[in-house]
Protein backbone atom coordinates (compact mmCIF):
# COMPACT_ATOMS: atom_id res chain seq x y z
CA UNK A 1 0.00 0.00 0.00
CA UNK A 2 2.78 2.39 0.98
CA UNK A 3 4.63 1.57 -2.24
CA UNK A 4 1.53 2.34 -4.30
CA UNK A 5 1.17 5.75 -2.63
CA UNK A 6 4.78 6.63 -3.43
CA UNK A 7 4.37 5.22 -6.96
CA UNK A 8 1.37 7.51 -7.51
CA UNK A 9 3.28 10.47 -6.09
CA UNK A 10 6.33 9.91 -8.26
CA UNK A 11 4.38 9.52 -11.49
CA UNK A 12 1.59 11.98 -10.71
CA UNK A 13 3.54 14.72 -8.98
CA UNK A 14 6.55 14.31 -11.24
CA UNK A 15 4.59 14.51 -14.47
CA UNK A 16 2.24 17.16 -13.05
CA UNK A 17 5.18 19.28 -11.96
CA UNK A 18 6.85 19.11 -15.34
CA UNK A 19 3.57 19.93 -17.07
CA UNK A 20 3.17 23.01 -14.84
CA UNK A 21 6.72 24.16 -15.63
CA UNK A 22 6.16 23.54 -19.33
CA UNK A 23 2.90 25.52 -19.29
CA UNK A 24 4.60 28.34 -17.40
CA UNK A 25 7.38 28.47 -19.99
CA UNK A 26 4.88 28.53 -22.88
CA UNK A 27 3.06 31.53 -21.34
CA UNK A 28 6.37 33.42 -21.25
CA UNK A 29 6.80 32.93 -24.99
CA UNK A 30 9.64 31.63 -27.14
CA UNK A 31 13.09 32.90 -26.20
CA UNK A 32 15.12 34.29 -29.11
CA UNK A 33 17.78 36.31 -27.29
CA UNK A 34 20.29 34.12 -25.42
CA UNK A 35 22.62 36.85 -24.20
CA UNK A 36 23.26 36.80 -20.40
CA UNK A 37 21.28 39.99 -19.70
CA UNK A 38 18.29 38.70 -21.68
CA UNK A 39 18.47 35.34 -19.91
CA UNK A 40 18.58 37.11 -16.53
CA UNK A 41 15.43 39.08 -17.48
CA UNK A 42 13.79 35.84 -18.61
CA UNK A 43 14.70 34.14 -15.28
CA UNK A 44 13.18 37.08 -13.38
CA UNK A 45 9.96 36.84 -15.42
CA UNK A 46 9.83 33.06 -14.90
CA UNK A 47 10.27 33.45 -11.14
CA UNK A 48 7.13 35.62 -11.06
CA UNK A 49 4.90 32.96 -12.66
CA UNK A 50 3.02 31.14 -9.89
CA UNK A 51 2.61 27.97 -11.93
CA UNK A 52 6.39 27.74 -12.15
CA UNK A 53 6.63 27.40 -8.36
CA UNK A 54 3.74 24.94 -8.24
CA UNK A 55 5.63 22.84 -10.79
CA UNK A 56 8.94 23.02 -8.90
CA UNK A 57 7.16 22.06 -5.64
CA UNK A 58 5.52 19.05 -7.30
CA UNK A 59 8.83 17.96 -8.84
CA UNK A 60 10.48 18.22 -5.41
CA UNK A 61 7.71 16.09 -3.90
CA UNK A 62 8.21 13.53 -6.68
CA UNK A 63 11.97 13.47 -6.10
CA UNK A 64 11.70 12.74 -2.39
CA UNK A 65 8.96 10.17 -3.05
CA UNK A 66 11.34 8.40 -5.45
CA UNK A 67 14.06 8.42 -2.79
CA UNK A 68 11.60 6.90 -0.33
CA UNK A 69 10.63 4.26 -2.90
CA UNK A 70 14.27 3.46 -3.62
CA UNK A 71 14.99 3.10 0.10
CA UNK A 72 12.46 0.27 0.20
CA UNK A 73 14.65 -1.51 -2.38
CA UNK A 74 11.66 -3.00 -4.13
CA UNK A 75 12.84 -3.11 -7.72
CA UNK A 76 9.48 -4.33 -9.00
CA UNK A 77 8.06 -0.94 -8.07
CA UNK A 78 11.03 1.20 -9.13
CA UNK A 79 11.09 -0.19 -12.68
CA UNK A 80 7.48 0.69 -13.61
CA UNK A 81 7.85 4.07 -11.90
CA UNK A 82 10.61 5.24 -14.19
CA UNK A 83 9.08 3.67 -17.30
CA UNK A 84 5.52 4.88 -16.68
CA UNK A 85 6.76 8.44 -16.21
CA UNK A 86 7.70 8.45 -19.89
CA UNK A 87 4.17 7.35 -20.83
CA UNK A 88 2.55 9.89 -18.51
CA UNK A 89 4.31 12.75 -20.29
CA UNK A 90 2.56 12.52 -23.69
CA UNK A 91 -0.79 11.72 -22.05
CA UNK A 92 -0.52 14.80 -19.84
CA UNK A 93 0.82 16.92 -22.69
CA UNK A 94 -2.11 15.99 -24.94
CA UNK A 95 -4.71 16.56 -22.20
CA UNK A 96 -3.38 19.72 -20.56
CA UNK A 97 -1.01 21.40 -23.01
CA UNK A 98 -2.90 20.76 -26.24
CA UNK A 99 0.07 19.03 -27.86
CA UNK A 100 -0.63 16.78 -30.82
CA UNK A 101 0.94 13.38 -30.28
CA UNK A 102 1.10 11.51 -33.58
CA UNK A 103 1.65 7.76 -33.88
CA UNK A 104 5.39 8.20 -34.57
CA UNK A 105 5.91 10.10 -31.33
CA UNK A 106 3.88 7.48 -29.43
CA UNK A 107 6.03 4.75 -30.96
CA UNK A 108 9.21 6.59 -29.94
CA UNK A 109 7.93 7.08 -26.39
CA UNK A 110 7.06 3.40 -26.01
CA UNK A 111 10.49 2.38 -27.35
CA UNK A 112 12.16 4.76 -24.85
CA UNK A 113 9.97 3.23 -22.14
CA UNK A 114 11.21 -0.24 -23.05
CA UNK A 115 14.82 0.94 -23.06
CA UNK A 116 14.50 2.61 -19.64
CA UNK A 117 12.96 -0.60 -18.27
CA UNK A 118 15.92 -2.64 -19.58
CA UNK A 119 18.42 -0.18 -18.07
CA UNK A 120 16.76 -0.41 -14.66
CA UNK A 121 16.50 -4.20 -14.85
CA UNK A 122 20.24 -4.34 -15.60
CA UNK A 123 20.90 -2.97 -12.10
CA UNK A 124 19.62 -6.15 -10.46
Amino acid at each position, binding site marked *: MRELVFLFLVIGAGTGG*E*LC*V*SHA*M*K*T*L*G*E*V*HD*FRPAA*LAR*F*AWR*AARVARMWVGVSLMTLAFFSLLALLSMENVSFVVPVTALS*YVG*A*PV*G*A*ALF*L*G*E*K*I*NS*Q*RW*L*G*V*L*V*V*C*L*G*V*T*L*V*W*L*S*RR
Partner: protein
Amino acid sequence: MKDSPFLHLKTYIFLLFIVLFAPLGNVLLSRGMKGIGSAARWEPRELLHILVRILTSGYIWLGIAFLLVFFIAYMLVLTWADYSYVQPASAFSFAVVAIFGFWLLGEKVNLLRWTGIAVICLGVFVVGHTHPRTTEKS
Protein backbone atom coordinates in the same frame (compact mmCIF):
# COMPACT_ATOMS: atom_id res chain seq x y z
CA MET B 1 2.18 28.22 -37.90
CA LYS B 2 5.44 29.65 -39.24
CA ASP B 3 8.57 28.28 -37.59
CA SER B 4 12.00 29.83 -37.28
CA PRO B 5 14.47 28.28 -39.78
CA PHE B 6 16.68 27.39 -36.83
CA LEU B 7 13.97 25.69 -34.77
CA HIS B 8 15.36 22.17 -35.16
CA LEU B 9 18.99 23.26 -34.73
CA LYS B 10 18.45 25.22 -31.52
CA THR B 11 16.22 22.43 -30.15
CA TYR B 12 18.98 19.84 -30.72
CA ILE B 13 21.60 22.17 -29.18
CA PHE B 14 19.57 22.69 -26.02
CA LEU B 15 18.72 18.98 -25.77
CA LEU B 16 22.47 18.34 -25.97
CA PHE B 17 22.99 20.72 -23.03
CA ILE B 18 20.28 18.86 -21.10
CA VAL B 19 21.64 15.34 -21.67
CA LEU B 20 25.26 16.41 -20.99
CA PHE B 21 24.97 18.80 -18.06
CA ALA B 22 22.42 16.85 -15.98
CA PRO B 23 24.49 13.65 -15.64
CA LEU B 24 27.74 15.61 -15.27
CA GLY B 25 26.21 17.72 -12.52
CA ASN B 26 24.96 14.61 -10.71
CA VAL B 27 28.36 12.91 -11.01
CA LEU B 28 30.17 15.97 -9.64
CA LEU B 29 27.73 16.32 -6.73
CA SER B 30 28.11 12.63 -5.98
CA ARG B 31 31.91 12.90 -6.11
CA GLY B 32 31.83 15.92 -3.83
CA MET B 33 29.54 14.33 -1.26
CA LYS B 34 31.51 11.05 -1.24
CA GLY B 35 34.64 13.03 -0.49
CA ILE B 36 32.95 14.68 2.47
CA GLY B 37 31.46 11.52 3.94
CA SER B 38 28.54 11.21 6.33
CA ALA B 39 28.04 12.25 9.95
CA ALA B 40 29.01 9.60 12.50
CA ARG B 41 26.99 11.33 15.19
CA TRP B 42 24.33 13.92 14.38
CA GLU B 43 25.76 16.57 16.69
CA PRO B 44 25.49 20.29 15.78
CA ARG B 45 29.27 20.79 15.72
CA GLU B 46 29.78 17.84 13.38
CA LEU B 47 26.91 18.91 11.12
CA LEU B 48 28.33 22.43 10.97
CA HIS B 49 31.71 20.99 10.01
CA ILE B 50 30.07 19.00 7.21
CA LEU B 51 28.19 22.09 6.02
CA VAL B 52 31.44 24.06 5.86
CA ARG B 53 33.07 21.24 3.85
CA ILE B 54 30.07 21.22 1.47
CA LEU B 55 30.26 24.98 0.97
CA THR B 56 34.00 24.84 0.31
CA SER B 57 33.93 21.86 -2.04
CA GLY B 58 34.82 22.69 -5.62
CA TYR B 59 33.12 19.54 -6.90
CA ILE B 60 29.84 20.52 -5.28
CA TRP B 61 29.90 24.08 -6.62
CA LEU B 62 30.79 22.80 -10.06
CA GLY B 63 28.01 20.21 -9.81
CA ILE B 64 25.51 22.90 -8.82
CA ALA B 65 26.67 25.09 -11.71
CA PHE B 66 26.24 22.23 -14.20
CA LEU B 67 22.77 21.38 -12.85
CA LEU B 68 21.85 25.06 -13.08
CA VAL B 69 22.89 25.09 -16.75
CA PHE B 70 20.80 21.94 -17.28
CA PHE B 71 17.71 23.48 -15.65
CA ILE B 72 18.05 26.77 -17.55
CA ALA B 73 18.43 24.87 -20.83
CA TYR B 74 15.41 22.74 -19.90
CA MET B 75 13.29 25.81 -19.15
CA LEU B 76 14.38 27.61 -22.30
CA VAL B 77 13.70 24.72 -24.68
CA LEU B 78 10.21 24.34 -23.17
CA THR B 79 9.37 27.91 -24.26
CA TRP B 80 9.16 26.63 -27.86
CA ALA B 81 9.28 22.81 -27.95
CA ASP B 82 6.65 20.32 -26.88
CA TYR B 83 7.05 18.76 -23.45
CA SER B 84 6.19 15.39 -25.05
CA TYR B 85 9.16 15.94 -27.41
CA VAL B 86 11.71 17.13 -24.81
CA GLN B 87 10.97 14.59 -22.05
CA PRO B 88 11.61 11.36 -23.99
CA ALA B 89 14.54 12.95 -25.81
CA SER B 90 16.16 13.72 -22.46
CA ALA B 91 16.19 9.95 -21.75
CA PHE B 92 19.35 9.98 -23.87
CA SER B 93 21.08 11.03 -20.61
CA PHE B 94 20.92 7.35 -19.57
CA ALA B 95 23.27 6.62 -22.47
CA VAL B 96 25.52 9.55 -21.56
CA VAL B 97 25.83 8.35 -17.96
CA ALA B 98 26.78 4.85 -19.09
CA ILE B 99 29.28 6.11 -21.66
CA PHE B 100 30.93 8.48 -19.16
CA GLY B 101 31.04 5.69 -16.57
CA PHE B 102 32.57 3.23 -19.02
CA TRP B 103 34.99 5.63 -20.73
CA LEU B 104 36.10 7.90 -17.88
CA LEU B 105 35.69 5.75 -14.79
CA GLY B 106 36.29 2.28 -16.19
CA GLU B 107 32.92 1.04 -14.96
CA LYS B 108 31.62 -2.28 -16.22
CA VAL B 109 28.42 -1.98 -18.21
CA ASN B 110 26.64 -5.27 -18.73
CA LEU B 111 25.03 -6.43 -21.97
CA LEU B 112 21.48 -5.80 -20.72
CA ARG B 113 22.33 -2.19 -19.94
CA TRP B 114 23.96 -1.64 -23.34
CA THR B 115 20.86 -3.15 -24.95
CA GLY B 116 18.64 -0.82 -22.94
CA ILE B 117 20.77 2.14 -23.97
CA ALA B 118 20.58 1.14 -27.64
CA VAL B 119 16.79 0.83 -27.38
CA ILE B 120 16.59 4.28 -25.71
CA CYS B 121 18.69 5.76 -28.53
CA LEU B 122 16.34 4.21 -31.07
CA GLY B 123 13.33 5.68 -29.28
CA VAL B 124 14.96 9.10 -29.06
CA PHE B 125 15.77 8.90 -32.78
CA VAL B 126 12.12 8.16 -33.58
CA VAL B 127 10.83 10.99 -31.34
CA GLY B 128 13.51 13.33 -32.67
CA HIS B 129 12.14 12.97 -36.18
CA THR B 130 8.74 14.36 -35.20
CA HIS B 131 8.17 18.12 -35.26
CA PRO B 132 9.41 19.74 -32.00
CA ARG B 133 6.36 22.02 -31.79
CA THR B 134 2.76 20.99 -32.44
CA THR B 135 1.05 23.92 -30.69
CA GLU B 136 0.57 27.52 -31.80
CA LYS B 137 3.22 30.05 -30.71
CA SER B 138 2.08 32.18 -27.76
